[in-house]
């Protein structure tokens, strides 16, 4: 597949103190490093997303480490309480050091 592409679903508006649901998905093969190439018999090097984090106005609201057992195209869903308008920043860290980022703004109604 093409380069990993993050996707995020965050409501555009929330009322103050509301708990919202955030959904994230990134296209990624999550190669475990434990499979062998059928033709050469050699190990296919590990390449997974090993960290994910979500910050709101600079403060971490959710983060996790990922391990080789996680399937391709990891999907994560979590909740966050919104007390003020601001920006959610999402970060995925790849084994090769690449960092994939995206942001979503939310306003208070």
């Amino acid at each position, binding site marked *: *597949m093409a380069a990993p*592409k993050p996707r995020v679903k965050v409501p555009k508006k929330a009322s103050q103190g509301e708990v919202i649901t955030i*959904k994230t*998905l990134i*296209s990624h*093969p999550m190669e475990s490093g434990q499979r062998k190439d059928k033709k050469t018999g050699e190990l296919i090097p590990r390449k997974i997303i090993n960290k994910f984090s979500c910050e709101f106005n600079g403060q971490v609201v959710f983060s996790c480490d990922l391990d080789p057992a996680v*399937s*391709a*195209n990891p*999907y994560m869903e979590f909740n966050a309480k919104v007390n003020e308008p601001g920006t959610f920043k999402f970060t995925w860290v790849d084994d090769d050091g690449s960092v994939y980022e995206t942001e979503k703004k939310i306003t208070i109604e």
Partner: protein
Amino acid sequence: MAKVVKHVAVLFAGVMLGGSTAAFAGGPSDDKLVIDDEIEIITRTAAPEGHPLDEVISGWHYRTEETRALEADSFQNPGMLYVERGEEIWNTVDGAAGKSCASCHGDDGEFLKGLGANYPKWDEANNRPINIELQINACREANMEAKPYKFDAADQKALTTYIKHQSLGMPVEVDLTQGEMKSWWDKGEELYYTRTGQLNLSCATCHEDYNGNYIRADHLSQGNVNGFPTYRLKQSSMVSLHNRFRGCIRDTRAEFPAAFSDDLMALEVYVTWRGSGLSVETPAVRQ
């Protein structure tokens, strides 16, 4: 000692309960599939005339609750990644003629609406049925002057997925009056009921006689193909119809025909007809 006995008794009751639950849960689920709370999918419908079963049921009903939920939310559905990729391919120029699919067919998906629900079709030029994959290749060669895709190339699967997805929710209908479609249907029917392989199984053994039951850990569906190409969790990827046909035949421990061969095209015509009236679900999510 008494404690141990009690433990065994509980375990036994558990097994009994497990057994009866499995038998109860063996049939298709009663849920309704509505994608994103918007698009109602026909997953059960009256069988077409001449069909051996009374009702045709989508494979969605035979999957676990978690897998069913994945398909009901287009954001969670990993197959949608391939729909996006397919759209990119649709709009990308390839080949000596300097054209993309969109150059002739537009980029708004209007041209494709309903198209994927009516394949396979009769191909007058080649005097045999044609499916989406072969149609793409025919177009690439004749109009784009590009190389045809090899079977199951990543781009072939993504583009096919994108094209079929434009008919999401629309009922599958194969026109058997075109050309010699009926004789291919006949051939497909014959293959469907022919036992093959060391295990001596026909398509009908599992998908007609025993659908709703378990074959080891796998819950047998009616084998309808309205969701293809399908995202299979097992492969973490899209699986094309002919790949699935070959997988099934391989599992009977038979030699399997080449993709797009006469045998598999006949089977595609027949099996697609068996799911007439079900909505296109592409990309469906399966086990």
